[in-house]
């Protein structure tokens, strides 16, 4: 029997949900608001809500001082490249784990995920040295490789969950119909898993876009991404709140827009397989 929901409970939970939503959104909102203030107004006490002189000056300064478009391009390449490379490795990996599991498949999956629990700083030194040795320091290709490896466990896990939902008989039917392994994955499995693959792609783009530890530590000026761009405005001295806010807004805007338009896919992706 469905649980009865009174109009009062419904109103209360709606208000609560909105309150929590606004609370979470507030820092982003405040950042965007601050980006339109002057530096003096930005630190005004009491804080100014809407009664200030709106200005685009911060955006102009930020663009002028650091090359936003180049940094944005770096972010796009690193996030897009690592996602693409990751998915190319993850599809066959998830295929084999979902459809021809061995005795140790579950262990491998868990082991892969456990690498995500390792503090990144623990492997910073060896990776840094490797990067110097291989000439990958401050290169986009270096970041693409490292972010692919960092996010691969999550991509494989998500795809594995999706693939498990696809009836094995359909793949067997493809085999009986004369499809070799490549054709089976290309024409049958992948199109059937498109929603899953799409949300995995999205999530991974967002994770790679927001990744700060490796992008800050392995780049200088050349391959700097938007996270580095924001960080360069956070300074213990001087008055940079408004500019920092403008830089942050410019950094998060693309991913915010992407996330807004794909939230349905994302939510489906994150809860897929939770219930039949």
């Amino acid at each position, binding site marked *: 029997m469905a649980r009865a929901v009174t109009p009062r409970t419904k109103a209360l939970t709606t208000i609560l949900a909105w309150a929590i939503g606004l609370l979470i959104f507030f820092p982003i909102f405040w950042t965007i608001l601050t980006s339109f203030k002057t530096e003096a107004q930005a630190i005004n006490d009491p804080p100014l809500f809407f009664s200030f002189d709106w200005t685009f000056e911060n955006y102009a300064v930020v663009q002028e001082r650091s090359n936003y478009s180049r940094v944005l391009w770096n972010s796009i390449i690193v996030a897009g490249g690592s996602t693409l490379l990751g998915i190319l490795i993850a599809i066959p990996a998830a295929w084999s784990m979902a459809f021809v599991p061995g005795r140790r498949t579950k262990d491998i999956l868990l082991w892969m995920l456990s690498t995500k629990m390792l503090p990144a700083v623990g492997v910073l030194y060896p990776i840094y040295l490797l990067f110097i040795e291989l000439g990958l320091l401050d290169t986009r290709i270096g970041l693409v490789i490292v972010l692919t490896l960092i996010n691969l466990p999550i991509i494989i896990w998500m795809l594995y969950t999706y693939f498990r939902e696809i009836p094995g008989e359909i793949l067997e039917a493809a*085999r009986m119909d*004369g499809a070799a392994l490549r054709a089976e994955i290309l024409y049958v499995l992948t199109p059937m898993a498109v929603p899953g693959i799409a949300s995995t792609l999205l999530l991974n783009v967002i994770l790679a876009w927001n990744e700060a530890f490796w992008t800050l530590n392995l780049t200088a000026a050349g391959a700097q991404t938007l996270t580095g761009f924001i960080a360069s405005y956070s300074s213990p001295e001087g008055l940079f709140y408004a500019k920092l806010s403008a830089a942050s807004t410019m950094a998060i805007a693309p991913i915010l827009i992407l996330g807004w338009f794909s939230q349905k896919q994302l939510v489906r992706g994150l809860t897929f397989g939770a219930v039949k």
Partner: protein
Amino acid sequence: MGHIALNQVTKRFGEVTVIPPLDLEIEDGAFVVFVGPSGCGKSTLLRLIAGLEDVSDGRIEIDGHDATATPPAKRGLAMVFQSYALYPHMSVRRNIAFPLRMAGVGRAERDKRVEQAAAVLNLTDYLDRRPGQLSGGQRQRVAIGRAIVREPAAFLFDEPLSNLDAALRVGMRLEISELHARLKTTMIYVTHDQVEAMTMADKIVVLRAGHIEQVGSPLELYRAPRNTFVAGFIGSPRMNLLSGAEAAKHDAQTIGVRPEHIAVSTGDGLWQGRVGVSEHLGSDTFFHVQVDGIAEPLTVRAGGEVAMHHGDRIFLSPDPQRIHRFDKAGLRLT
């Protein structure tokens, strides 16, 4: 061509032997039905022939060539699955065309053959729909269409009708039989339903626990079951199997007599008993009778108009020519 031979084929899953060494020969053009209770290994055997499972030991030959290690895609066999296993993201047309596309058949030829198959299976009006928009029977026809376009050496059917309702099942049974009559291609059909086995097969293979209990035509199995298992499995309602004193009178451990080979009378007969449940089918009536001196309740078939009721005393006489005798091991005595 579709001659399939299994030589000492064995299948083990880890320590468990599902199919002990098994020999079987399937002639070109035959309609062979694997039948048995669930878990008897009939589906596994079919999947071994398909190549979807690896053989642990032994040899599978298709048209004289060793196909034991050939991947399923290269065996030239087509399979129809219980769940239909259609490609949900493709239209009916593309589903049926898929094997041709995999075989590298050109577009014009592909279209022609899809249209032909669709015409045979009454699917012409549905070619541009997705499987999700079709009924169960139509989906099954698409699955069959996908199998026939590629003109395989043999068709493999894995319980293809068990997801359909009863009326549709009878219709599809006929369609598959007609298809076989027209194509004359080898068909191997797995089912747990002995009615399907009896009505469709040229040759029935009765399986139990991976063993072949008997191979023969439907009537051979009906007339001369090799053991009590086959006797009980083939025929509906099942054969009455009696042991004890009644069997001893015939020098056997067990005797069997089919419900349709027992005459019912209100006047006299060999056995006397009391009517239990009656099942009126219209054309026939099945009486469950508790006979005096026999432990097992008997099932008896009578005409549809025979009026007997719960508790009535009746007389039964088995046809002496049609009493099957079995020894201690359950094997047929001649």
